[in-house]
């Protein structure tokens, strides 16, 4: 008995500490969520003097590198102190991370993958960035290579200015020629699979035209007035700038004996260093083992004191075969961070972080991630038999969706995933962490199995005619008398989706629905979604909180989205009346000019969405990060994903390490100079 009460008190204390730690987080001054104005994040200004890392200073003194003033732009991008919760940093130290997707080459302009897990965020620079939008009180894309922009009076031309005098990592100047190359020769070129297409840039039936005015100015000519959503296509994902001086020799438009077939493999993974505008440059890569990056001596960003960024000297990424290794590496102290995106890892990492000698801390962002049940609303796409055809009719009936919602105990799902303040039930379109969510606009269809049964019986005539606990289809349907069986598919890679799906089986059985659960591998799951071959689907979504950038997650904006109501090739899609309303609002949203207009429309969409139970919310959760304690300038509420992943959300170039905590740099003498670039295979091709 004594030991029991002792245990109990320990648990109580732990719970107390646990819950306190969140209240503390909510108020502390290390939190940045929605706190800053744009000019408190970055500015483009001239400073009186500049300073650089000691290893670079030495290279300048040896005459290997031009002086800092010549390497920096005349007006550099200055990262503001307001974003640095521990203040300006000191130079040195290593960031050790883990990635788990093979690097298939460095030609990101042709769709090559550089391993994800933060590597893309380090290497790819674009006109604008979304990474730090989470810090802004008025979320708008943050200037990056583009310093400012203006619409002409007729709203059809966007004049965009770019940073002057910035240089690529090999010392070649960055100009609007690189922007034009990326846009005209990669994005618009149909022979090259780049990260965006001419379709993305079509407004009012016309493909947007780019006119280069001078080295720092371009004009975008649109086919419609004020296509504000175009600004979201200047992001890292859609517009990673490629160095023209490197790639023109592989591009058939510039080089006679080049061909499109070889363009995507122009710079294979082992052939480093490569040319980037990013803070670090890849200098070594051993497939399956490790990627090493060192400081880019030409990086064009500084802190307010004029210190050239990044602070840390080296970034080393261990390559693993699966993302779980990232967590193991963090726990063993061999890696520096992991994302806590999945409730199944929360408990394990939490336990390790509580140990006295634990070297890392966990922090959780706002509610941004959610799990939802999607019903296939397509009338005939993917239908192969009478049962499916009848089911689709049911799904398209609001009363049936309501019955399903009443049958689902969301609170049980959320506490089953991870009890405590990190999860909660979820009813609507956007998660609570979204600036666009409001309880007022959310209609809740609460857990009430009796009501569900009544609806199924009275509205649809379902009855259990053979007394086996499962409802039977009523007379008048094509499958009259059959059991009410519904397939539910989910993705095996998402452990929490599988867990939630499993919990749905007994809940729905309670009201007489027999759920057949299919747990599918990631690609198979996607293939089934794309072919419309499913009844129900449980999915995780991390991006619904930023609906302006991911409109396809809230409604129909193309023939193939949303995934649960696609247009087939034979019959035209019949949108339900409320879907049509949402679709119209989304078109309106694309052309909104102010943040207020945007908010109004998105509120209206949430109201229509939840009232009509477009999808059934299951639960939402706060995703977290676990980061080694030695790093400074990590905000306490840094979200792993909101607008972009955390490497950009910090951003990583302002992270620093106190001198006594710094790990040894191993590659200080390998900062690439001209001869390193000219020694690569790609440069002599």
């Amino acid at each position, binding site marked *: 008995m004594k030991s029991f009460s002792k245990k109990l008190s320990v648990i109580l204390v732990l719970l107390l500490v646990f819950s306190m730690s969140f209240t503390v987080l909510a108020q502390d001054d290390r939190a940045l969520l929605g706190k800053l104005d744009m000019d408190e994040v970055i500015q483009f200004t001239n400073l009186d003097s500049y300073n650089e890392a000691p290893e670079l200073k030495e290279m300048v003194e040896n005459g290997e590198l031009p002086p800092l003033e010549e390497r920096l732009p005349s007006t550099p991008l200055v990262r503001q102190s307001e974003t640095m919760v521990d203040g300006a940093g000191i130079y040195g130290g290593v960031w050790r991370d883990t990635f788990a997707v093979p690097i298939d080459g460095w030609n990101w302009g042709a769709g090559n993958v550089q391993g994800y897990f933060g590597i893309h965020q380090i290497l790819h620079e674009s006109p604008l960035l979304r990474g730090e939008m989470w810090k802004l009180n008025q979320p708008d894309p943050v200037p990056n290579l583009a310093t400012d922009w203006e619409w002409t009076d007729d709203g059809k031309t966007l004049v965009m200015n770019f940073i002057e005098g910035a240089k690529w990592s090999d010392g070649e100047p960055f100009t609007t020629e690189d922007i034009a190359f990326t846009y005209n020769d990669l994005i618009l070129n149909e022979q090259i*699979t780049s990260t965006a297409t001419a379709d993305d840039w079509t407004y009012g039936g016309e493909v947007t035209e780019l006119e280069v005015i001078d080295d720092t100015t371009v004009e975008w000519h649109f086919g419609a007035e004020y296509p504000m959503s175009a600004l979201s296509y200047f992001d890292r994902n859609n517009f990673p700038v490629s160095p023209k001086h490197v790639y023109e020799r592989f591009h058939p438009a510039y080089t006679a004996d080049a061909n499109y077939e070889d363009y995507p493999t122009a710079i294979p993974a082992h052939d480093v260093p490569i040319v980037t505008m990013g803070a670090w440059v890849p200098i*070594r890569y051993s*497939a399956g083992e*490790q990627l090493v990056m060192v400081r880019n001596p030409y990086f064009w960003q500084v802190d307010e004191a004029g210190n050239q960024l990044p602070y840390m000297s080296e970034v080393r990424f261990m*390559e693993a075969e699966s993302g779980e*290794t990232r967590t193991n590496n963090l726990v063993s102290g061999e*890696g520096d961070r992991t994302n806590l995106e999945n409730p199944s890892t929360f408990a394990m990492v939490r336990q390790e972080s509580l140990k006295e000698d634990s070297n890392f801390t966990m922090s959780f962002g706002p509610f941004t991630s959610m799990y939802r049940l999607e019903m296939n609303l397509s009338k005939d796409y993917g239908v192969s038999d009478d049962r499916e055809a009848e089911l689709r009719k049911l799904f398209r009936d609001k009363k049936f969706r309501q019955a399903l919602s009443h049958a689902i105990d969301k609170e049980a799902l959320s506490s089953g995933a991870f009890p405590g303040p990190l999860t909660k039930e979820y009813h609507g379109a956007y998660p609570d962490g979204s600036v666009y969510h409001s309880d007022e606009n959310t209609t809740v269809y609460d857990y009430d199995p009796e009501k569900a049964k009544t609806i199924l019986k009275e509205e649809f005539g379902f009855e259990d005619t053979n007394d086996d606990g499962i409802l039977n289809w009523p007379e008048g349907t094509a499958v009259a008398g059959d059991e009410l069986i519904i397939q539910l598919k989910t993705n095996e890679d998402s452990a929490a989706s599988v867990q939630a799906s499993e919990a749905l089986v007994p809940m729905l059985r309670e009201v007489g629905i027999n759920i057949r659960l299919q747990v599918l591998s990631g690609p198979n799951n996607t293939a089934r979604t794309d072919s419309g071959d499913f009844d129900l689907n449980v999915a995780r979504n991390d991006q619904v909180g930023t609906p302006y950038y991911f409109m396809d997650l809230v409604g129909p904006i193309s023939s193939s989205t949303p995934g649960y109501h696609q247009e087939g090739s034979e019959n035209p899609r019949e949108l339900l009346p409320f879907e049509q309303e949402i679709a119209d609002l989304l078109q309106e949203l694309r052309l909104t000019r102010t943040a207020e207009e945007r908010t109004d429309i998105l509120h209206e969409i949430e109201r229509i969405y939840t009232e009509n139970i477009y999808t059934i919310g299951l639960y939402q959760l706060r995703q977290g990060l676990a980061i080694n304690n030695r790093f400074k300038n990590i905000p306490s509420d840094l979200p792993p994903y909101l607008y972009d992943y955390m490497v950009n959300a910090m951003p990583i170039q302002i992270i620093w390490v106190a001198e006594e905590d710094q790990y040894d740099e191993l590659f200080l003498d390998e900062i690439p100079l001209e001869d390193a670039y000219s020694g690569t295979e790609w440069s002599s091709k």
Partner: protein
Amino acid sequence: MYIIPMLIVVSFVSFIVISLPPGDYMTTVQNRLTSQAGMSQDQARAMAERMRSQYGLDQPFMLQYLNWIKNIVLRGDFGFSFQYNRPVSDVIWGRLGYTFLIALSAHIISVLIGVVVGIYSATHQYSFGDNIATVFAFIGLSIPNFFFAIVIMYFLSFKLNMHVGGLFSSEYVFAPWNWAKIVDFLQHFWVPVFVVGIAGTAQNMRIMRGNLLDELQKQYVQTARAKGLTERVVIYKHAVRNAIQPLIMYLGMSLPFLIQGAIVSSIVLQLPTTGPAFYNALLSQDMYLAGSFLLMLAVTLVIGNLLGDILLAQIDPRVRYE
């Protein structure tokens, strides 16, 4: 010469199996574009569609297969790995070194330890040492090696705070070879060798023990002892030589099994060997890579058998062709 039709069948069946599930490699790409790159679903799907036609994945199945085989036969070209954006042969060759190193080390160790302990067990039947060895052998045989790998990983990572996964710690991957690097390498290397070797050791030991016990009952052993030969000569020159034959016959067979074992434990231990590449190729439907791996496994089985036969002929003159 029955090998060639067999390889054709293997290649065809493996190609079918890889193509069976819905979707193809570009579905994997599409998945990553939404989950990792943060693209919208529409954009990801459009990009996957473009890549599909670029790489000919929208062609009919038989055409894809025939093209693949044609290139292997005519040009020794095993196709293209989408995942690595490189020719399949580059991917496999680049990872073969460590694979064979692990498989062979495990093999040699399992044979050496297995045979020595087996002999000891047989000559000291029912002694304390024999019982201990037997218990360990059963444990080694009955625990699947992926489970062993997980337990060892958990122990090293969570209890000893050591680095697991890969063959080197982060700071040694590109370091020049020196003592520290060798020590670091061995700290990582013993795990897969141990995991892959343990089942083989146990099996070899049991086979050796059983065979030697049989042989020791035979009359020629009695004769040898009666002749006054020392026990040493009786056992090592006569009995062991006969008892070891099935083991050698099995040697060749065990090569592909070891490579498979290496695959499973490499996946768990995240080693830069062929195993994880094969596994990921299957998962992501990187079909030419997966198909080529299956072909390679079939070839090692054939070669292993051949090697086993040759070795046996060396040791046992009775099986040689006249």
